[in-house]
């Protein structure tokens, strides 16, 4: 391997019959169950990791459906009542010419959630198959998924701010739609899915 400093068979805590804490890095003898440094539970590998990853991912996927079907925002003015879904809101922003904001909402509410479903699912499946991309690329993908997930919550906050701000009784009022709940749940579930992923599994032979 040309990558200096990464010998193919790097020493691992598990390879040496030891258990490392995934929070603080403290190394323990094989029999340890609780970390001596941070007092949290430890295990060589989180054996239930993939089960939890799939369970939360499925929950996130299910919650994402009503999030897109039902309205996110209910706008009522003197003349009309309008309901807009996530995608509808993005289209409207594009029509108004607010390209920057439209892109932010589109990325946060559609690209990131869908990308996360695909990335987590693919990572979980690829653990038991011959590698298509290197461990480094898989690890980086998991880190991107973990970093980016929370930013999906933007649209929920946008709805909260609009609903609390635009309250002009008969003239113009914005109310949150039920999709905001399922969207927030979907984001939280997929965050939990990514957090359940034991990244050490990627590096095991």
């Amino acid at each position, binding site marked *: 391997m040309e990558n200096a*400093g*990464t010998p193919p068979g*790097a*020493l*691992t*805590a598990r390879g*040496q019959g*030891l258990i*490392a*804490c*995934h*929070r*603080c*890095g*403290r*190394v*323990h*003898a094989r029999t340890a169950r609780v970390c*001596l*440094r*941070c007092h*949290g539970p430890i295990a060589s590998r989180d054996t239930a990791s993939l089960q939890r990853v799939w369970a939360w991912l499925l929950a996130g996927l299910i919650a994402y459906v009503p999030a897109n079907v039902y309205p996110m925002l209910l706008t009522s003015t003197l003349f009309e009542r309008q309901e807009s879904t996530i995608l509808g809101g993005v289209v409207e922003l594009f029509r*108004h010419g*607010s390209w*920057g*904001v439209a892109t*932010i*909402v589109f990325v946060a509410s559609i690209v990131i959630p869908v990308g996360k479903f695909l990335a987590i699912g693919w990572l979980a499946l690829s653990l038991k198959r011959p590698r298509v991309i290197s*461990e480094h690329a898989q*690890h980086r993908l998991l880190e991107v998924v973990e970093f980016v*997930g*929370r*930013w999906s919550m*933007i649209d*929920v*906050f*946008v*709805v*909260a*701010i*609009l*609903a*609390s*701000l*635009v*309250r*002009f*009784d008969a003239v113009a009022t914005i*109310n*949150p739609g*039920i999709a*905001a*709940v399922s969207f*927030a749940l979907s984001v*939280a579930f997929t*965050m939990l899915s990514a957090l359940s992923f034991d*990244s*050490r599994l*990627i*590096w095991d032979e």
Partner: protein
Amino acid sequence: MSAQPLPALEGLVACPRCDALYRESPLSENMRARCPRCNTLIAAPRAGAMSRIVAFASASLILMVGGLLFPFLDLSLGAHTSHASILDVVLAFADGGTAFLSFAVAGLIVVIPAARLFAVLYVMAPLALGRPPARHATGVFRLSEALRPWAMAEVFILGVTVALVKVAGLATITIGPAFWAFVALVLIGVLQDNTMCSHTIWKTLEHRRVR
């Protein structure tokens, strides 16, 4: 039964992300240690970090109180004006089927960030003064680290920006001091994260613990 000689565990460190095992070498301040295998940042000790973290966290708490008390945003449309404080934003979902979201939003933008600030102060203040850790400091710090992904003040600020652009054409917006308090809170949070090396804190907690 064969008694295998255990390696000296004290000098070893494992990458929390990929389990690679290393012998820990002393790291001078302003150096960074990365895992050679997966490139995860393992340690980045900074000079005077403990007292700086306490300063950052206290400043953030004061800003948080300001953010909750001062006006956040005003919107005027003709003769009508509406005011929104952070509390109003949290309560936006309080009616009907979305009530659950009020708790979630309150947690994500106020309760969890504030809890993390209190936790950091509780853990770091005794360490910064060179004292042994406070009671249950280990558990408190573990909780604070676990809550890290769920403190979303910076996501909220981006959400505010998006919302403001959405209504900008329709009505006049006045940005209140609470908004700037939150922006400052986010910026200080970035500084605090860059100063805080959890590996060093864990080791300090372990070594100073009264046995």
